[in-house]
């Protein structure tokens, strides 16, 4: 039975702690149990000194020098570590762009009239994106433009004459030149991923610096994938605008048909949201008061941002939602879904429903989803959940009565329109003026996951607290946003006490100008993990407004509790974009002094960005502030 101290080490979230205690009582294994069983973890993998890229392996290099100092093929620690990192970046890029490609296919089907359940929701954005891509807009139908945008998106995956448009056209010209001069402009998203797989193959690229540059180029391809995913999701499902909602396990309701939407892509989840009303009667007929959708991870962020659907939990605590015993179904698509949810779901009577051909889990019910059959599949899911509710009805559940108010949905468009209430002709001026005056000392983007190695949310909370007090404007995406929302950072009622004077005044001015009768929340929720592109878009807009490159801005990023290889590829593009980028868990690179040095120092001379690897949140916050101040000084502020 976990005692208090043990719980404190696992999570800072009181709702999660309640469920950890319950899991222990029920002898249901959770991520924390599996982590403990895994300890101590293999130091070779931990430091990047294990290579399984060929069948002569596995090779391990002894970091202490007594054993082998190179792999069987002769790869040094530097080569091995750089190759491993490249593959992580490639995997992350494959995931984000896979998500984007899925949306591109959907948009193409919409354009061709083959996906009746979907439509173009944001014509303005469609046309803006098309214009950016140099696609003819005037005098053409929305479907024609959408078809061309979708085809341009799909074309960005393979090698072609033009660079990847979603990379080349989304950054400011100065940054485009930096990337071009360094050879970091991707020629095709899939091409870069594939080339990483090629060059990291047995007996290809052994030059650690060459490998790392390829990794950065792949990282830029990841930016393209993310940016594309955001653009296309906005076109199909709408641009997010601030919505008032709430977060944490208390959003699950004992007497409703509870369906958790978990994963990343809004394609299915958005449809489930829009069809919920039509299924209400069936739910009521089963004895429920209605249907209650709750989000987990980035699917949760997508539907929260566009529909105000509450988030029940995030990332490392995903099993805890099921442990309430009140989930009737958990619907998942892909990415960050721990296979263990199937086991926990079985213990708790929840039906786990997988929906994607690439993401099946033994023990789950698989309902194959396609855009063409989306509505039928959605209804099938509702039927299962309602049937499950009938079985569950009247049985006791354990829902922690803990939830926090959240205002979420700050897309760039939403931010600009809020700022326009202060200065309609020059909306960026108020924010840039605040940066100049020091009311906003800088900007920090929190992204990434919750890592079981870190007490859940503790790094996010500690760093955000410190930065807000120091008047740093904090943006958040993904499960970083999830962490901060569950701890009240997105509740405008807390803005005053969380923020320093300058930042408080800015957030209050914007809030009041928008008729909120109070400030904006202390942390602005910008979306899911692909929506880190929104933060890039905002940085690019501010850079262009100031007439400087993005590496001159007092903007930093932090993946304080990163897990996924997607966080590594996001980190790579943040560095490529010129941002000091904090990672709060150890990247598997320490085995190579050279690679560690390049990533944390030398790359600064190339892109202006660099990694700050620091496991201590207090000192990480200091380093982020120092990086902000260095840049302010560079701008003469």
């Amino acid at each position, binding site marked *: 039975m976990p005692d208090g101290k043990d719980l404190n080490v696992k999570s800072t979230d009181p709702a999660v702690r309640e469920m950890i205690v319950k899991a222990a009582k029920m002898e249901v294994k959770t991520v924390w149990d599996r982590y403990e069983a895994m300890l101590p973890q293999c130091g070779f993998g931990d430091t990047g000194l294990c290579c399984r890229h060929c069948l002569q392996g596995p090779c*391990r290099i002894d970091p202490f020098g007594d054993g082998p100092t190179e792999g069987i093929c002769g790869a040094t620690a530097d080569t091995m570590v750089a190759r491993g990192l490249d593959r992580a970046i490639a995997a992350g890029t494959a995931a984000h762009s896979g998500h984007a490609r899925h949306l591109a296919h959907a948009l193409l089907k919409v354009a061709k009239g083959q996906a009746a359940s979907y439509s173009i929701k944001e014509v303005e954005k469609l046309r803006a994106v098309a214009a950016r891509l140099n696609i003819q807009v005037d005098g053409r139908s929305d479907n024609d433009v959408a078809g061309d945008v979708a085809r341009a998106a799909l074309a960005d995956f393979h090698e072609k004459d033009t660079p990847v448009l979603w990379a080349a056209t989304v950054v400011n010209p100065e940054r485009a030149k930096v990337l071009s001069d360094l050879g970091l402009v991707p020629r095709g998203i899939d091409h870069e991923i594939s080339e990483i797989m090629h060059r990291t193959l047995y007996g290809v690229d052994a030059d650690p610096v060459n490998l790392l540059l390829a990794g950065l180029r792949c990282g830029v391809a990841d930016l393209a994938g993310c940016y594309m995913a955001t653009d296309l999701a906005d076109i199909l499902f709408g641009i997010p605008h601030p919505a008032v909602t709430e977060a944490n396990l208390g959003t699950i309701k004992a007497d409703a048909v509870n369906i958790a939407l978990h994963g990343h892509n809004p394609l299915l989840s958005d449809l489930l949201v829009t069809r919920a009303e039509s299924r209400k009667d069936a739910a009521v007929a089963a004895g429920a008061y209605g249907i209650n959708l709750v989000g987990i991870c980035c699917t949760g962020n997508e539907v929260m941002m566009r529909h105000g659907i509450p988030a029940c939990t995030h990332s490392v605590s995903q099993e805890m939602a099921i442990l309430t015993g009140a989930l009737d179904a958990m619907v998942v698509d892909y990415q960050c879904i721990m296979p263990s949810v199937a086991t926990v779901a079985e213990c708790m009577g929840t039906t786990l429903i997988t929906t994607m051909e690439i993401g099946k889990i033994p023990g789950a019910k698989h309902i194959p989803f396609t855009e063409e059959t989306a509505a039928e599949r959605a209804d099938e899911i509702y039927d299962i959940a309602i049937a499950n509710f009938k079985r569950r009805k009247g049985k006791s559940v354990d829902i922690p009565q803990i939830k926090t108010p959240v205002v979420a949905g700050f897309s760039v468009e939403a931010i600009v329109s809020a700022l326009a209430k202060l200065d309609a002709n020059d909306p960026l001026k108020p924010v840039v003026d605040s940066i100049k005056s020091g009311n906003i000392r800088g900007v920090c983007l929190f992204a990434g996951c919750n890592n079981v190695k870190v007490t859940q949310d503790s790094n996010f909370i500690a760093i955000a607290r410190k930065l807000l007090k120091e008047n740093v404007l904090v943006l958040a995406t993904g499960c970083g946003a999830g962490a901060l929302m569950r701890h009240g950072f997105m509740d405008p009622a807390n803005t005053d006490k969380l923020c320093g004077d300058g930042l408080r005044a800015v957030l209050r001015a914007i809030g009041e100008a928008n008729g909120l009768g109070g400030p904006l929340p202390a942390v602005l929720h910008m979306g899911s993990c692909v929506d880190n592109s929104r933060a890039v878009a905002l940085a690019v807009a501010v850079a262009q407004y100031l007439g400087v490159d993005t590496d001159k801005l007092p903007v930093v990023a932090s993946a304080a509790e990163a897990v996924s290889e997607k966080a590594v590829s996001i980190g790579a593009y943040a560095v490529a974009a010129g941002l000091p980028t904090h990672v709060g868990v150890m990247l598997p690179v320490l085995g190579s002094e050279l690679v560690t040095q390049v990533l944390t120092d030398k790359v600064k001379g190339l892109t202006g960005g660099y990694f700050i690897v620091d496991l201590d949140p207090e000192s990480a916050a200091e380093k982020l502030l120092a990086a902000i101040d260095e840049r302010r000084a560079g701008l003469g502020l």
Partner: protein
Amino acid sequence: MTEPREIFVRLDRCMGCHSCELACAVAHSRSKSLYGAISEQPRPGHRVYVEAVRPDTPVPVLCRHCEDAPCMHACIAGAIGRNEEGAVITQADKCIGCWTCVMVCPYGVVGRQLEEHKAYRCDRCQGRETPACVQACPTKALVYRSVRDFSRDTRKTASKTMIVPQGG
């Protein structure tokens, strides 16, 4: 009083992952963390050695803390003694790096710290509840038990493996 424990090797369980070696080096580093130890100079040495007879037969080898420890008697500097738990300990400050212990150890498990010119060897991780190598072993090929407990467990396992196939 609890019986002194020793580190035993269950050869059939060793996967040859070398995790014990890393954990040992970290436990004998100044920083006591992998991330810190990896950049220490001189590099911390490990005192357990995963050797291989053939590619598929890894053998972890470490100091047996012999009852009649040849290294202890051979030491010309009085640097090797036995502590209360029965572990044979090399005292670095007294070691003069003459390598006599290396010459007489029949297990070949005395290491040489060349930068500091000191011999080093397993100290069963004095001050830790369980030696780092034992803790690190993912397959429990290394176990920390008293002689009595270990031989009792071995007998139990042996009888189990004999009974199970017959029983069905």
